[in-house]
């Protein structure tokens, strides 16, 4: 097993299940942060090519907020939380107030709030891996950038270019206070990490 293209159906199901558990954890964490009941859709977890993932965000040039978290330790990789600018403004209205129609750049408070959501989502996914496998995993502080979806998404693709051209792409909707937050998460792990996860879970390669 050298790259994501060589994962078999069972292994993909395992990754998908990790995505599902992570999304559930993320909803619980978001509900605590927002102090609101948060419903989640059934997450859609796909192992897909770069262009499909970019198109799901509305195309390469879509204005997007990206929060990047690295993870290291017994597992190595990156998680990026991607949010269309319009969705970012919606959730910010719940978190810090303000007018969702306003345009212009996000101030520091708003950037921090978005970063924190990315941090929560990233940690939720990593926790699901750590809990399932007993692996010890540390995560970095979150990094934020606001730019074209394609330019942001290429960052983990480049850093982990050796694992192939496929990405693990998780789409889910969080619904709080009648607002729908469409979140997209891409996750990259080194092949060694994927192999260890499968071993720990007793999945044959």
């Amino acid at each position, binding site marked *: 097993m*050298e790259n994501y293209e060589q994962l078999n159906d069972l292994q993909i199901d395992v990754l998908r299940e990790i995505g599902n558990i992570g999304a559930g954890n993320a909803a619980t964490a978001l509900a605590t942060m927002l102090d609101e009941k948060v419903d989640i859709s059934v997450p859609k977890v796909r192992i897909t090519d*770069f*262009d499909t993932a*970019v198109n799901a965000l509305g*195309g*390469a*040039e879509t*204005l997007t907020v*990206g929060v*990047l978290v*690295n993870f290291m330790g017994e597992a190595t990789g990156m998680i990026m939380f991607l949010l269309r600018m319009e969705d970012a403004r919606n959730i910010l209205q719940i978190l810090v107030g303000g007018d969702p129609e306003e345009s212009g750049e996000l101030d520091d408070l708003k950037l921090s709030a978005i970063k924190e959501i990315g941090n929560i989502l990233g940690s939720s996914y990593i926790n699901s891996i750590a809990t399932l496998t007993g692996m010890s995993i540390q995560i*970095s*502080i979150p*990094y*934020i*950038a606001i*730019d*074209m*979806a*394609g*330019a*942001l998404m*290429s*960052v983990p*693709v*480049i*850093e982990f*270019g*050796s694992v192939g*051209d496929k990405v693990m792409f998780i789409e889910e909707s969080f619904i709080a206070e009648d607002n729908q937050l469409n979140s997209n998460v891409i996750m990259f792990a080194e092949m060694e990490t994927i192999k260890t996860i499968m071993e720990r879970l007793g999945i044959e390669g």
Partner: protein
Amino acid sequence: MKNALIVGISDYKLAKDPQVLATYALGSCVGICLYDPEARVGGLSHIMLPDSVQFARQEINRMKFADTALPDLVAEMERMGAQRRRLKAKIAGGAKMFEVQAGSTIGTIGDRNVASVKSVLQELRIPILAEDTGSNYGRTVFFNLETGIMKVQALSRDVREY
């Protein structure tokens, strides 16, 4: 900009005047425009990584790496009537999209991509007439094969032409 021929990530395309070639959302990747002004043949390459050496044992997409994509593109352009000694280059991209902690190797790939593109072009003896590289934002490139002009667009920034 209708009917532009779109170049994907880890991809290149070549064409003749009056075609427009385009590639979207270059982050740390680099877009390389090669042009023969006499034959009016041009190519646009969107590379993702500096060199293919560490992947030598694997089957690779040669269009992904600067050291394999550019010689291949030049060879194909020659078959379309271009001459290497007349080729000129314009390059864009190689940004650092996330401001990460000092000391991390993550985020240096843009610089390494630009450096590799320059050294490969130097080996191919193709001069670089213009570059719009580095900084921290994504770029879309349109390359007009009628004029040889490279147009660079970024979100909330003025369009630049080279």
